[in-house]
């Protein structure tokens, strides 16, 4: 069993609740005992050792196979329409098939993609990566048309072009700091790229900074900006703080077309999705004992790297 069965199940249903997703993972996905043992939902997403269902959820969302969102009373998911996300390579075009799939749609794709080869690449804790490569863009257009896929040319750039810059303009919802002694406070240290325990007073007196508040199973990510507290997402908050601290973390190797970031600073979901659609692969996770662990995104064209860094208000080094 693999993520393929999970995607088939999700595609057959179309949408569902988080509980149903977890149940399906339990039933369909066989993994090692270590991954199954940890069922703590509060494990941060930017740390290693995620529970299996969280890992699967993250990968499905990273690639864009499904969207997970919160609704009143819980969380839900919905599978996305099948898309042929085309990326321009050096001498050819490659289209990754992202989104819902069924046995019937795969068989049809295999038929219409001929004589081009429908390549299948396995991805750990994720559905197989199906791709079609051709020197002619019109060929891919035809494959998408006959295969019932949405054709998205230059998918990475298209997604990045639709996004806003990650800066203080994203902070729009001022909130009050939660009341109660049970809350624990942590501040993101931009220089050390780590979280450090602080007090409520530290936060209330800080004029700028990213803070993480925890109480039992609840985690709030708050950003202090000019003395006002705003709610924000974890990844965006980090890059806002990094920009504020003028900390550069993005590295790009034009020789290998590799974009590297510290693992703790994984880009926001849609930016990362654009990076993954360049290669159809998950980033390589590199662990260092004396340095922050790194994520290496492969086969990233220079234009995509520049656009991504511009959105993150980072300069490529």
């Amino acid at each position, binding site marked *: 069993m693999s993520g393929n069965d999970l995607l*088939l199940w999700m595609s057959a249903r179309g949408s569902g609740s988080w509980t149903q997703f977890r149940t399906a993972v339990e039933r369909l996905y066989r993994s090692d005992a270590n991954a199954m043992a940890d069922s703590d939902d509060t494990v941060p997403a930017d740390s290693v050792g995620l529970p299996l269902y969280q890992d699967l959820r993250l990968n499905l969302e990273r690639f864009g196979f499904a969207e997970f969102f919160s609704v009143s009373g819980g969380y839900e998911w919905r599978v996305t329409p099948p898309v042929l996300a085309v990326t321009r390579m050096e001498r050819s075009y490659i289209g990754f098939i992202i989104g819902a799939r069924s046995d019937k*749609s795969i068989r049809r794709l295999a038929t219409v993609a001929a004589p081009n080869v429908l390549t299948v690449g396995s991805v750990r804790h994720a559905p197989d990566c199906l791709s079609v490569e051709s020197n002619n863009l019109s060929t891919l257009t035809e494959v998408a048309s006959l295969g019932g896929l949405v054709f998205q040319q230059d998918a990475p750039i298209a997604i990045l072009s639709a996004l806003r810059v990650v800066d203080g303009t994203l902070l729009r919802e001022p909130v009050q700091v939660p009341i109660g002694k049970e809350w624990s406070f942590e501040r993101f240290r931009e220089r050390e790229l780590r979280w450090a325990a602080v007090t409520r007073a530290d936060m209330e007196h800080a004029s700028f900074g990213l803070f993480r508040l925890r109480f039992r199973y609840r985690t709030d990510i708050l950003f202090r900006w000019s003395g006002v507290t705003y709610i924000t997402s974890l990844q965006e908050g980090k890059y806002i703080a990094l920009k504020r601290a003028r900390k550069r973390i993005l590295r790009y190797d034009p020789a290998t077309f590799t974009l590297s970031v510290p693992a703790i600073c994984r880009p926001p979901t849609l930016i990362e999705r654009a990076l993954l659609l360049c290669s159809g692969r998950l980033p390589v996770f590199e662990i260092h004992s004396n340095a922050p662990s790194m994520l290496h995104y492969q086969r990233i064209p220079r234009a995509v790297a520049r656009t991504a860094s511009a959105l993150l208000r980072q300069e490529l080094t």
Partner: protein
Amino acid sequence: MLGLDSLGVVVTTALAVAAGVALYRFIRRPASGGSTGQTTSLCETTHTVGSSGQSTSMTATEDIDVNRLVEFQAGRSGKGSQLEAPTLPATRTTNPYASDTESPVVGRPDSHMPTSDPPPRELNRDLSNAHDQTHDISSDEDSAVDDSSLSIIIDDITSTLSSVANNDALIPAVIDEQLREVVALEQTASNTDVSATSYDSPATSDDDLCALASVGLLTPSSDPVAIDFPVDRRSEESKSSSDAPPTIQPPPASSEAQDDELDIACEDPIDVNANDSDLLHDLDTVRRYRPAARTPRELRPASQRRPKDSDPRERALSIALRLSFRPGGICQFSLLAQRRSDFPYRINVRMLGRTEVFSTLQDDWYELRAPAELGELLRSGAIGVAVLPGNNILKWTLAQRDVYVLGVVPDFGGYVTVSRLVIGEEHVILCDSALRGSVADALAAAGCAAFSEVNSTDGIPDGWIAFRNVNPTKPVPALNDGGILDTLRPLADLEIALRHGIKVDRSDWLLGHGPTIILHGDVAAAGVVLIDGQPAAINDAGVCDAPGKGDIGEHTVWSASKFRSYRIVEGLQEWEAWPAHRPSNSVVCGAAVFPMSGSKGHERGLIVPSRDAVLIGARVGEIHHCLPDPRSRSSSNVVFPAFDPIWLIPRFPLRCDRAIPVIHTSTTLSTPNAQTPDGSVRRSLREWCRLILDAHHRRLVVEPSNATTEALWNAYEQVAHAHWRRLK
């Protein structure tokens, strides 16, 4: 055959009810004319009481009538869940009307009334007093008050009837019928607009005639006005100074003649003389228990299946028997009645001709003590009825049977009714004494050894015996003849498991990923296993296989012991985009970017540099302004023009940086089309031409720079030039 005394009781009873009906109609005067509503067809109510004490059967037409009464009682008492059936005071032993050949009337019993019934005239006064009271109440416009006053009257009638009746057992049956009529007439009044004049003929339907005839209120006449009811109750009462009650035409003096005449429209008349303990049955005929036949069944067509959203309360709830052994081996019985979470903690249930109180034992079960007539109850079964607020009717049934299989059930002490013997588990068998031999033989065939017999000396009801320490060890093929002894034939210990595959819903598997059918347990004794009616091939691991088991549609797996069904579905084959992320002027869903909903643009977007530029199409007038999103601050932008864009031109070519090129955006060499699009405005035509001509005048570079693109651009310039002259 009706005796004179009994006849008098019946007549008195009927007159009391009729008077109550009259009072009720006075209270519930309709607003306008209309047709009568529904009435209870008491003609369908048969109550046959054998004078020799034979078993009786009673078929009630409308359970709801009694229940409406119960509801009125509850409404009056203000208790939502504590529904009180009409309580009956102590009965009388003499019939004061035995010698009264005049108009027998019923009056409103007073709480201070002596135990002996007053003479009719005093009762008449009481009735008129009640009538006046209800009249005063009815002047209140609040309809709820009318209901309460009606219930008061009903209570009063009930009390009066009980005070003159002789036989306790008869009272419920008789009163039930009379009260049903009252309730039915109340329903009629509440549901319809009936003019006051229509009350001239109270017996407006044959059903009512039957009802009245059955209790001796009506002579055998088809004249619907045989009973004289006052036309205008209020005017009549206000005029009367003597408190004369409504008069009811008395029945003939001869009871024998009456007996004959009563048979006109109705079926068997009520024998009010009967002192029959068989009046334990309540409301409906109790069905006989039949074990489920263990034969392959075809899937019912969808039209015959119970709809998923059908009210589960439409099905009767079950009553089970529980047996506990006390120290010394004494048997103690109790009854368990099904309960749902929204049922009240305690509920009054009409059963066995009386009100039983069901008390919650567990979330899913009520408990009540076994009645004294348990033996008869077990043999004949019973039905219990209650009404919840909102007119939700609850019905419990205990089917008739001669053999009960009691087993150990989790969460219950003692032994509780189970469907049949189960191998390896301990049971107690309770059976009719007449079946002792057959039961013993069946138990022996099931491999039960060392079971012992328990009889009435240890608390078993008379006429019954019990076998305890019953431990079946062998499966026995069922005869499937519906005989009760099939419950003593344990099935092979088998389980049908549906494993693996991709389960989409409760019992739906995805096409191509159907379940693996595996048998667990005593596979050797399972016998034939059918998949969709076809014999299945079973391998050593218990995996069953048959042709077509993975095809789309419904499938069944049948064995004598177990049955499973599942369905193969195709799942969704089309998926639509939705605004999952809306960071700017477009929507991101999955790996694609879509226009905002309501946009007229094509779904296929185009990535353009983020600057003030315009896209033009092949047809004159096709323009789309690419306005950069100031919040985006990205170097590129995704736009969704409503046409196939050919060129991207700076919006103000004469003022822009000369290094900014004119970009060919199309993958095809679309030559310009001189025809203008439908609905084009002059402004867009001018804009289209201006952009091209200004870019030409500014000598902006065309990209990609090659001869083909250059030639194409020249063609557009010529068309723009020609149109510009025309527009001038």
